[in-house]
């Protein structure tokens, strides 16, 4: 009993903000041979500690072979899943010595149940009985994937202990609520445990765990070392939290940002521009990075290793004055804008034409693109919106996405927007095919249907604007009802 209390205290220390859930789980598990609930569903947001807590909890409280952990994305077929479970329950790992085989061949639920009922023969003399005395646990992470494995797998797992007549407790982990697991004919319902979101206090405490408790010493130019204590880190994480919490509460994301921004934050201390206690000044100096991080790092526009490399490169090149260091780091980060990719000149026009064909209503083509029409008539957004738009402009093509268009229409637009006569050497069908291969165009009709092929333009407005700019084409003027 005391042992249990120790475990529980240790777990609560390791997982701030989860003490209720730890208590619940520990009391449901009871002693190893106690009867348990047949199945449990643990759900909560991503990085709310489901995987790490459950694994930690099981490994500290019961013997390793009493529980099996399966990630349903990694082991996505019934066979992989069941064989792995039985391997873990028998402390068997596929290796060179056993020709990388599993301990028992299990193709489907029926085989699995057979193994549960009859046990696994380990050798001539002994058979591993599963769940005859102590409860075995089967942890299924990303359990929502079980729904794709066949209609009966999930309902069967939920009542595995009833069907097999063994002490088995199935623990499902998922970010998805139980309603989404229900099937029409119903099934035994698991006990639901929610891992709630963390409060700000919990989040800060967890973030602080990445930072050693005794603080850390950093080297400062000319002056030996300076000690950074716990509070320093705390105030730093608080700032990170307040910048990002509105759009991101994911712990893993926050930790990632903290890890990457912290070195930049303390840079001014290293090179003597600020002191440890001058937090306000430090924030001011780091402000540009934070702004940049929102976009680039959070959206993964550059990878974290790239970010780390560039920032450290800049920091190493201490030749310039400190202010320009910051500026150039940011510039370096910024340059990695859209992966530039270049298309031949006329192909760009083809893409533009297909964009126009995808987003403009055909009835306005004459007004926009008739060569004969006077330049003057082409006023910017000169055409009145149709009056019968009930949804307050929410049904604009811009919002609805690209419409499929026949090739002929796109070609008509194409010929009208290029100024000069087309070079004979350009093979338009080939260009269309290559745009399709690049997935810039999508073919919406079947391949075998040669006539009347239809396409959709598959690029964003920003992208097409870039393309248009590179060929000095003012695309804004030709788009209907864009805001």
């Amino acid at each position: 009993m005391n042992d249990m209390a120790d475990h529980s205290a240790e777990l609560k220390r390791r997982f701030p903000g989860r003490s209720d859930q730890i208590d619940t789980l520990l009391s449901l598990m009871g002693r190893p041979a106690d009867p348990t609930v047949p199945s449990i569903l643990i759900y909560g947001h991503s990085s709310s500690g489901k995987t790490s807590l459950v694994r930690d909890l099981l490994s500290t409280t019961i013997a390793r072979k009493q529980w099996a952990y399966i990630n349903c994305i990694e082991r996505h077929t019934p066979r992989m899943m069941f064989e792995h479970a039985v391997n873990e329950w028998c402390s068997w790992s596929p290796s060179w010595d056993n020709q990388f085989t599993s301990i028992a061949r299990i193709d489907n639920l029926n085989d699995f149940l057979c193994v549960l009922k009859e046990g696994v023969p380990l050798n001539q003399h002994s058979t591993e009985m599963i769940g005859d005395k102590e409860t075995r646990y089967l942890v299924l992470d990303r359990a929502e994937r079980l729904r794709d494995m066949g209609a009966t797998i999930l309902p069967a797992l939920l009542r595995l202990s009833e069907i097999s007549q063994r002490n088995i407790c199935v623990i499902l982990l998922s970010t998805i609520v139980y309603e989404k697991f229900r099937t029409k004919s119903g099934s035994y319902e698991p006990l639901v445990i929610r891992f709630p979101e963390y409060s700000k206090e919990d989040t800060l405490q967890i973030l602080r765990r990445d930072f050693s408790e005794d603080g850390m010493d950093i080297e400062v130019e000319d002056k030996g070392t300076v000690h950074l204590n716990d509070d320093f880190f705390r105030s730093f994480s608080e700032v990170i939290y307040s910048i990002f919490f509105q759009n991101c509460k994911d712990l893993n994301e926050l930790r990632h940002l903290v890890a990457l921004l912290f070195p930049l934050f303390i840079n001014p201390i290293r090179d003597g521009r600020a002191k440890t206690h001058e937090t306000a000044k430090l924030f001011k100096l780091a402000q540009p990075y934070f702004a940049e991080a929102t976009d680039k790092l959070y959206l993964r526009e550059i990878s974290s290793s790239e970010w780390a490399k560039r920032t450290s490169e800049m920091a190493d090149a201490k030749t310039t004055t400190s202010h320009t260091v910051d500026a150039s780091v940011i510039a370096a980060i910024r340059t990695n804008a859209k992966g530039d990719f270049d298309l031949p000149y006329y192909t760009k026009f083809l893409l533009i034409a297909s964009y126009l064909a995808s987003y403009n209503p055909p009835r306005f083509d004459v007004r926009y693109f008739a060569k004969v029409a006077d330049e003057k008539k082409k006023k910017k957004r000169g055409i009145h919106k149709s009056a019968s738009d009930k949804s307050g402009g929410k049904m604009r093509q811009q919002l609805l996405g690209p419409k499929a268009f026949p090739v002929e229409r796109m070609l008509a637009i194409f010929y009208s927007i290029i100024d000069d006569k087309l070079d004979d050497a350009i093979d338009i069908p080939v260009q269309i095919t290559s745009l399709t291969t690049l997935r810039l165009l999508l073919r919406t009709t079947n391949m075998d249907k040669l006539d009347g092929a239809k396409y959709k333009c598959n690029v964003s407005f920003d992208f097409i604007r870039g393309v248009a700019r590179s060929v000095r084409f003012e695309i804004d003027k030709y788009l209907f009802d864009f805001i």
Partner: protein
Amino acid sequence: MTILGKRKADDASPSCLASDNQSEDLETVVQDFTILESNPFLVSDSESDRASDVADPPENGISTPPPVTEHDSSLATYVQEAKNSILDRISERSLPIDLSNLSEQYDKLHHLLEQTVKVGESNSCLLIGNRGSGKTVLVRKVIQSLQKEHKDNFLTVELNGLIQTDDRSALREITRQLTRESQMEDRSFTSFAESLAFLLSLLKSGSKSTTPVIFILDEFDLFAQHTKQALLYNLFDIAQSSQNPIAVIGLTCRLDTMELLEKRVKSRFSHRQIYLYPPSSFGDFSSATKSVLSLPMSDSITDENHTTYIRNFNEALDTLFQDPLFLAVIRRIFDLTKDLRMVFKICFQPVSSLSAQNPFLTATQFYDSGIMQRADSKTELLKGVSLLELILIVSMGKLLDRETSTFNFQMVYDEYKDFMNMTQASGHSFGMKLYKRAVALKAFEHLQSFELVCPVESVAKCPKEYRMMKIMLEPSQISNAVAKYRDCPTAVKKWGIGNPL
């Protein structure tokens, strides 16, 4: 006692249950049953109420908190024993002590199977009843009593439609179960009928007659999906032609199971059906609950302390079943589903936290676990989304209001942009800023990963911003989520709950 009295007064004043988002499965939305003001299922402000309960356990009328120090270790074992025996029942490992409301069905089935076991008469029968109505338990009870009365004069084969998903595996399982029980050899056969017949012919014990076999097919409707329904055909055929004495018992919760059977299968079936109903009155329901939670007093227990503990435990249970708040929890389950398993669900936590320090069941624990199991999980999940995600959800709600039930990210973003422009213009933005399209798209995809927002078509035919989606929330769930969101800026609150500013 004062608190109890007060609650009774509350009890008398009926109040309609406010809309509280039952999950999708509960078709029966109970309109006007009266329930206590402080409904324990609603995560409401009844905290203070509960706190007073915790502080004041003797109120429950347990006269003697049993001697603590010297008998501590023996008490711990008694508690452990009690805990295990109740857990055995609510985890459905052991059979309930009595099946009072199913006695008629019990007699029917018992008679039917006894004919097979005693006289060698073949039979087939279908047990139909909702989930948790006691089908499995009933069959197990009957088999148990037959085993007592007739020793080993018959065999049982248990199949489950969830596990034996085709006839091949069903046959393998039948072979496994029969050979295990009567030591026969494996042999392979070409046709299904042939191998089944062979299996049964081997059961001939001595010269006189073959051993009767009782086939129990759980989730019977799933067997009807097997190709050509060969297993069912053969089993019913044997039952009808009385080659071997067998009984085929099907268990299902589908009322239309008969319609699933092919004509040639149906014509061989006896058409005998037994319906099972959940307890029809609240009295039956709560007494069934109570019998599951109570400890039997048996003569074999001689230790004075042990009997005292059992008596005290059952007394505490009596008190529990007089607690109006606890009864309201049970009542609500009864009104919604009549499913005993729902009650078991909320019993798990209180029962597993029994210990020497806390040896009796008390009402407070049940409120908490009741809240946990019945809370609307989507609203709960929404408490943890980021503010941006919440605003996107409200934007989708606004689209829904305009009867745009499917939408894509662009439309949602446009709605969000309008809202932000509006709040910024009126100076109510309170530090909220308009996030870029890409950041919002990431948030949108996050919502998609929870399946709160789902694509309409399974295959993507256009860029992801334009993929048509629908939201899996009711408008009331959305406004509920906004109301419950921690530190929600007033502008968002106003926009999400009421009409636009």
